[in-house]
């Protein structure tokens, strides 16, 4: 037995068993008294409206698949597999499979999309570039990076004229361009409010984590990130025949990324606090949640109802995930029921 344990301990984290039990810290449920959050939507700009219309124009473009004899042109859509490297290791979250992108110069990746122009469809490209000095991740500013890219497919786009009656009619948002823009303004206004409410919810959750003085152990953060990586990236890398040391390198890239760590710690803090509140206030999952989840799984996911029934009844991993999600949502609803929303400027 000890020998088996010893062998298990030698397995790299990247290949470790995925369901090893973890010890969660004890957290006291915080008070829900006096919770307030400010509802402060961002204003809409002319740029926002034009960007929204541009997305619709792109969406209505006529698309033609390029043949294997053709080359990629500026403005094409391309289907890419990618992996990026920077600072001597895999760039976290740069491993992508079957991702569509617009071939258009992007200041965040200077030279990346330009390097695809003129490449034959079906070939691979090695792109070296320097990340810009204003990159959103501070540690990557001005850093050299390399990307290995497979150009798997390309489509030529022919854009409609946004002022043409045919295009306007196709949008179903009024008969004239001003009417279309007014519709877009209304849609954006609603999205701004949605965004503000989501922000208010995040404020509340942060306050609860502070009230509860949650301390998330480093080992728990490591394990959360590892399991996320196991779900999101490892299967892809294994399909591409990455070797064990490369898998470990990929996992390390996630584990060592400061934003990823901070995000995981925050999510864990929130979950621990909500769990404590759910226990104290005896929160129960809601049947309505199950209805909608089942609707999603039998609808867009096209899982036959009989198969879904079998999976939900017999697959322990699915049951656990379902229970976790339903309880988290029920606890979140309960917390938000105690919150007083305030108008901008009145203080949260």
């Amino acid at each position, binding site marked *: 037995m000890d020998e088996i344990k010893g062998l298990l301990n030698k397995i790299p984290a990247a290949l470790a068993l995925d369901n090893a039990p973890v010890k969660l810290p004890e957290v006291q449920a915080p008070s829900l008294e006096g919770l307030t959050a400010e509802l402060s939507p961002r204003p809409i700009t002319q740029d926002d409206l034009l960007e929204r219309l541009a997305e619709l124009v792109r969406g209505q473009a006529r698309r033609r698949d390029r043949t294997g004899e053709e080359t990629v042109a500026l403005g094409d859509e391309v289907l890419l597999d990618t992996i990026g490297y920077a600072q001597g290791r895999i760039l976290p979250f740069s491993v992508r499979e079957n991702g569509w992108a617009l071939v258009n110069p992007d200041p965040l990746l200077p030279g990346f999309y330009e390097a695809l122009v003129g490449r034959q469809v079906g070939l691979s490209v090695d792109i070296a570039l320097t990340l810009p000095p204003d990159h959103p991740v501070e540690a990557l500013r001005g850093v050299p990076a390399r990307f290995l890219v497979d150009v798997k497919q390309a489509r030529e786009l022919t854009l409609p004229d946004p002022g043409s009656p045919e295009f306007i009619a196709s949008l179903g948002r009024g008969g004239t361009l001003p009417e279309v823009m007014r519709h877009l303004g209304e849609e954006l206004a609603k999205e701004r409010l949605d965004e503000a409410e989501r922000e208010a919810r995040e404020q509340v959750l942060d306050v609860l984590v502070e009230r509860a003085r949650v301390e998330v152990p480093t080992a728990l953060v490591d394990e959360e990130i590892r399991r996320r990586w196991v779900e999101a990236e490892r299967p892809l890398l294994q399909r591409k025949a990455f070797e064990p040391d490369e898998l470990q390198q990929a996992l390390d890239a996630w584990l060592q*990324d400061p934003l990823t760590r901070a995000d995981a710690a925050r999510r864990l803090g929130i979950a621990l606090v909500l769990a404590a509140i759910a226990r104290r206030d005896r929160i129960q999952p809601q049947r309505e949640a199950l209805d909608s989840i089942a609707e999603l799984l039998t609808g867009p996911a096209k899982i036959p109802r009989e198969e879904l029934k079998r999976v939900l009844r017999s697959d322990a991993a699915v049951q656990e995930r379902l229970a976790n999600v339903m309880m988290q949502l029920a606890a979140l609803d309960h917390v938000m029921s105690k919150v007083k929303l305030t108008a901008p400027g009145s203080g949260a």
Partner: protein
Amino acid sequence: MAPRIGDPRPVPQQPQPTSTRPATPAVTPPAARPAAQPQTAAGNAQAQQQDRFDGPINLIGRAANAVKSVTDTVLGLATKTTNGQRTFGPFNLGSQPRSTVEPLNTRGSRAASVLGTAASVAQLPGAAYTAVRDARNFIQNATAENGIKAAGSGASLVSTAANVAKGAIETGNLIRNFRGIRDAAAQTILQRAPDAARSVVNRVAGEAAQQVLDGASRQVARGAAARVATEGLEAAARAGASAARGAAPHVLAATAGRAASRFVPGLNVAIAAADTAAFGAEVANAFRTGDPNWGKLATGGITALGSIAAATNIPVVSQVGAAVSTVSSLVGSFF
């Protein structure tokens, strides 16, 4: 003639908006539109009533719509058969009559990228590349030249990053700071570099956009006032609507797409759309292979929906209440 991408770009005729936040516009009646937001106290009451009935059902239901929207996007884009050879990953000559494509993603080319050295294999036919260089020898040679220096530099950076993260974990205020950093970075990702579509739109629709700007801004202010005014109603209903509305499908689709194409680390897990995109890819893959793993699909869908409704990825390792038995009984009564 319709404009094509790649045509010379016209210079935008409209002034660009400033990034500063304007003063909150006055709340005035909107331009006549039957579907506009409530304009009066009675209208507000109607909105409150609507919120009251939105409830938890809508929390999940609207999140499900958001998931569906993004999933459809992924499906629409990802299910076509590719031209040419699929190359990333295991070497595969396939049956294409034309010259084959070498996967850059061989052990050797990956190692070269780690070290920042030129792989010199871009667009080389695969057979030539593998004949000239054995992958493992390539790695060893490259390591001898640059490996120690690269490893040392990486370790130092790792140490600094870990310390920064540790601080953010232990102090509440720093968690808020982290959220600020994350949100600012996410905002950068969402900014779209001008492309052909945008250039044409600027020229054609700039004036129309300017004309509706005031009305749209007033609508935002009115909407905020209406939602705040629901205070005092059953807050559970408000919370349900709140969480659901946070899952605007369009925003999530855009976020998922842009974050994915820009390879910015750390933010992917901070944005709920990542789970949705992963789910969409899983569904697409299941259709493509014709051999779906129902358990995996179900797990992906549940995770995506939970992330969107809660506006954050729900941790994998934690359990909010260990209610498996309760959920099992719900499942039992469901079928």
